[in-house]
């Protein structure tokens, strides 16, 4: 591994020398934004793009004397394409940073490149815990599933929920969420009566929901990816699971702000934990939501938007800290430990793990101003990714 990358680097420098005149003006800050703009996860990509643009519009397109340029690429959700695009961004477009990354495999496929090319990589959505470990150049402004799931398990125990069925999509984040919930919930004396996984591309949740109903648990813990939330919620309502005494609790994913309104009153009262709600009550957020609505013709910001907004903030602040230097290592170092007030509340970058430390909120769906919102009821401050915390403790 070492020899390979060092040889590769020698190739690189040789080639770089052999290509005169390709260097770009010193005063730009080029950011390669790799997101899914088409395909099943397009809405994530578009929201990230909006968040990024919003930040630039708000805070100007220069920072520390550098003009910020965004090079947007559509990875179609395919890792090998993402890898190629990232490589081209680094070698051709000479970007200083990579950002975006909607899906775990995409982020993981690009990670070795970040290491090899020493380009910082700001992950704005992908939420599997292991991602930041894949390269020392990865910094994350999104979240990890365990980070928002464990507080939910705590909350459930506190609210006298003893027996839970988990239902997750069968992919990395889903399994992360399931494991985090089960471990935390069991450790607090709760019982997990069943662990259901549905395929990622499943159009019909009814068999899983039927099993959940049959298990006669107190609550159903759900995690599915963006987009699938609506249909699972509808089926829960259709089955009357919500009325049969089975509480639905979730780490955010089925009460996303983007679709919450269409769920109707049946969703009212649904409890979830997450690190951001469009209803978060702070001046920063009110401004952010207003700006976002203005930019998207009335849309409501959701996780990718705020992650991207914060990601840009992180980049801006880091470049300021390095006084305009775009050296990869220096940028990453500058990012470590940065703290700021995000629309989601106070956040900071954990210098050890390069993951975000943030508040997690317990929310319930309520009707406000004629619309449904996740209203934050409790705050669990400064939550770190518990997986890495545990790893740190155990060895």
């Amino acid at each position, binding site marked *: 591994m070492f020899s390979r990358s060092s040889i590769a680097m020698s190739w690189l420098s040789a080639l770089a020398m052999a290509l005169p005149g390709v260097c770009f003006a010193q005063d730009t800050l080029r950011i390669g934004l790799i997101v899914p703009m*088409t*395909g*099943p996860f*397009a*809405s994530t990509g*578009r929201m990230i793009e909006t968040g990024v643009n919003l930040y630039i519009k708000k805070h100007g397109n220069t920072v520390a004397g550098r003009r910020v340029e965004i090079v947007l690429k559509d990875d179609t959700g395919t890792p090998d394409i993402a890898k190629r695009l990232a490589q081209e961004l680094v070698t051709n477009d000479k970007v200083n940073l990579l950002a975006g990354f909607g899906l775990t495999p995409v982020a993981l496929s690009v990670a070795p490149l970040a290491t090899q090319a020493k380009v910082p990589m700001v992950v704005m959505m992908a939420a599997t815990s292991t991602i930041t470990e894949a390269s020392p150049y990865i910094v994350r402004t999104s979240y990890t599933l365990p980070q928002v799931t464990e507080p939910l398990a705590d909350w459930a125990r506190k609210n006298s929920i003893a027996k839970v069925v988990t239902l997750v999509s*069968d992919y990395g984040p889903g399994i992360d969420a399931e494991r985090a919930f089960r471990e935390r919930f069991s450790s607090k004396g709760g019982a997990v009566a069943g662990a*259901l*996984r*549905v*395929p990622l*591309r*499943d*159009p*019909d949740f*009814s*068999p*899983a929901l*039927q*099993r959940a109903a049959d298990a006669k648990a107190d609550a159903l813990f759900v995690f599915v990816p963006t*987009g*699938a*939330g*609506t*249909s699972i919620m*509808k*089926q829960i*309502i*259709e*089955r*009357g699971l919500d009325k049969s005494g089975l509480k639905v609790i979730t780490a955010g994913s089925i009460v996303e702000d*983007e*679709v919450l309104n*269409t*769920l*109707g009153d*049946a969703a009212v009262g649904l409890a979830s934990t997450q690190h951001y709600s469009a209803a978060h009550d702070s001046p920063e957020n009110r401004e952010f939501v207003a700006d976002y609505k203005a930019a998207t013709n009335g*849309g409501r910001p959701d996780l990718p938007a705020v992650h991207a907004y914060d990601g840009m903030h992180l980049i801006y602040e880091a470049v300021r800290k390095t006084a305009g230097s775009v050296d990869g290592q220096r940028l990453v170092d500058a990012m470590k430990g940065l703290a700021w007030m995000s629309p989601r509340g106070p956040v900071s970058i954990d210098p050890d793990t390069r993951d975000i430390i943030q508040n997690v909120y317990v929310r319930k769906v309520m009707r406000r101003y004629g619309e449904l919102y996740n209203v934050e009821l409790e705050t669990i401050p400064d939550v770190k990714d518990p997986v890495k915390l545990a790893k740190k403790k155990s060895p």
Partner: protein
Amino acid sequence: MLTILFDGVAYGMLLFVLACGLAVTLGLMNFVNLAHGAFAMTGGYVTTVLLNDWHVPFLMALPIAFLATAMLGLLLERTLYVRLYTCGHLDQVLFSIGIVFMSVAAVTYFMGSQQQSFQLPAFLQGRFELELLSVGRYRALVVAMGVAILIILQVILMKTSFGSRLRAAVDDRRVARGLGISVGPIFSLTFAIGSGLAGLGGALGVEIVGLDPNFPLKFMIYFLIVVTVGGTSGLIGPFLASLLLGIADVAGKYYLPDTGSFAIYTLMIVVLLMRPQGLLSKAQ
């Protein structure tokens, strides 16, 4: 147990409503219209807009979705599809995939890429609790519509002169024309009905399988499975195939949650190995 069976039936019926239009265009007219899902998506979006923005009652929105999609189908058939009946299947694949790509991008442009949904009227929410069986009201509606559509189509196809002319045109387009059958208008109308049914299926499906611009690509394989497993000789085959697949899928996932997602493909392969022409195939 019975509830699972019912859910399977309902899922199967939804597949049938979604795919029966394809059974007509691919099975009968022998046109590989991979853009079938695009018509279904159109129906879904029409319904969503009608319900959410125009506040049209759901049961009124369904026929409008059917008609709107049928009109769109008619328009495209007259302008573009009509030139491809005589082309090879590969051209049809290429063309209809092109239509799919365009529709995906166009819908993203106009409607955004997020999931769409709407509120069902109260009388369609919830369930009937019977002795052994718990029936979702909405699913019951889907089942009823699936059966009704099968019966109506079957009657049109087998009992009316339109049906016999259509079958004649399908058997031998050239000779049918030479014998006075106006193949063009018959195919146009059939294509419109097929598209309309897709639209209706799309409208009904929003509630169960969701709706986003990626819909045509996501469900393309499911439609094809229904038609292939059912056989391309008529509508009974696809109907049975839909039922079988729906039940197998739901039951597979219920009873074998770890391997249930294999059910639909395994079933398809097994059926096609035993009956390469599908469940019900035309006697040669």
